């Protein structure tokens, strides 16, 4: 049998807990209301539908180890970084489609971000992205370095506009594109020298064909440097975009 004083104590403690819970709930509601009052959520900018434009894709073909030029019409944003991401997304959608000549699962969602930076010759404080194997730092969080630098960036954040910062590069200067791939894309990419190089070359060539100022391309995976794409193709160095572009 529980002594009377213990039963009373238990009842008091239970009542105190319930009262405290109610008070906390009310405080939370008040804080939420205060937050909403200070934030104007009315839409101030009408959504825009980007006009459809023609983009040149360099589509890889495994059987003959070649890049085939393909024209696609698709809505393209004006911001160069977003434009690059949309175009590369379309390219990877083609690879993910059934019957593709260069099958790679993942599709357009595999391009997490594309950053356009002044090419290294123009950088006053060069972003160290190369050589994860030694002096220049293995496995450094390279994306934070990229984000810190001046860039026109494009982020895949549903429901929000891409944050844009002004690009201090000369208007016609060469650009370095940093393509951030998702880890799932890399994990599912077929392993092999030919397949991996074709993927990288097609990305580089497509970027250069649509954004001729892009002269160099670097790759990150989930914001980190990685040694190879799927065991073969080197991801630690910059690729010259013009090398992959079709010759006139």
């Amino acid at each position: 049998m529980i002594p009377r004083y213990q039963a009373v104590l238990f009842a008091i403690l239970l009542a105190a807990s319930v009262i405290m819970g109610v008070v906390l709930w009310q405080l939370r509601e008040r804080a939420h209301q205060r937050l909403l009052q200070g934030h104007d959520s009315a839409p101030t900018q009408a959504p825009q539908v980007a006009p459809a434009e023609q983009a040149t894709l360099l589509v890889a073909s495994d059987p003959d180890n070649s890049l085939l030029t393909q024209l696609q019409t698709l809505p393209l944003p004006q911001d160069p970084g977003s434009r690059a991401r949309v175009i590369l997304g379309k390219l990877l959608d083609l690879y993910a489609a059934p019957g593709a000549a260069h099958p790679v699962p993942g599709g357009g969602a595999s391009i997490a971000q594309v950053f356009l930076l002044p090419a290294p010759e123009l950088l006053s404080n060069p972003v160290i992205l190369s050589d994860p194997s030694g002096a220049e730092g293995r496995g450094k969080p390279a994306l934070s370095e990229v984000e810190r630098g001046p860039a026109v960036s494009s982020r895949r954040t549903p429901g929000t506009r891409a944050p844009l910062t002004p690009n201090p590069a000369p208007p016609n200067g060469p650009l370095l594109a940093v393509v951030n791939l998702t880890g799932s894309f890399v994990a599912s990419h077929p392993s092999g020298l030919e397949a991996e190089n074709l993927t990288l070359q097609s990305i580089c060539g497509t970027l250069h064909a649509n954004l001729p100022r892009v002269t160099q391309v670097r790759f990150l995976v989930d914001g980190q440097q990685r040694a190879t794409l799927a065991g073969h193709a080197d991801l630690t160095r910059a690729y010259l975009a013009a090398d992959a572009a079709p010759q006139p």
Partner: protein
Amino acid sequence: MNLLKDSQTSRTKSLRRLLAAFLLAAAATLAAQAPPVPAVPQPPLAPPRFIVVLDAAHGGDDPGGSLTNPDGGGQPEKAFTLALSVRLRSLLAARGFQVITTRESDAAVDSDRRAEIANRANAQACLSLHAAETGSGVHLFASSLSPAAPTRIPAWKTAQAAWVTRSLALAGVVNSALLQAGLPVTLGRATLPAVDSMTCPALAVEVAPDRSAGSNPADSFIDPAYQARIAEALATALLEWKSEARQP
């Protein structure tokens, strides 16, 4: 009196020095004009051994790609490349080559170590062996580095630049031999960390399934005859490369 004696002594010393200098100059002139001493005939030196480095890619905890067998199971790329390396080593040794391999067992060897082994060997040909399920026949890749003049201390990551021209010549010889053996060949350039650091004519050889008429691509990686054809063709190519290298 003493002063006169001192001046005479110093004059005698100067004359002696002058005489010694004159004699030295005369001796040097005579030596320069003397007829060359006929060289003592040396016994002919044994021709240096022709060294080939075979690099079976991957190994240890790096399985490389997965090669599907007809039974649905997968064979790791590391096992296939090791088997091909062993087979090719036997063929080359029988033809009088000195063969150095980067691994003889399922051991992990990083790309720097592979290049170190190749560079220490001072080899006349280096082959990095790979395998992939994409494409068909054999893919040959030379380094994508731009050719550069040799330097006394080459940069580690681009050491191959001074050898790219020779590597491309080796690719031509290997291509001819493979085509003569009836194997489809795809030529390309790639960035492969191990190859890019090698200071020898170096190629990455990627074996892909046999997709010719009448063959089952799924059988390629377990078909000893297919592997033997490729190994024989590579041995023939290296024999041809050796004879070209020996020509004055």
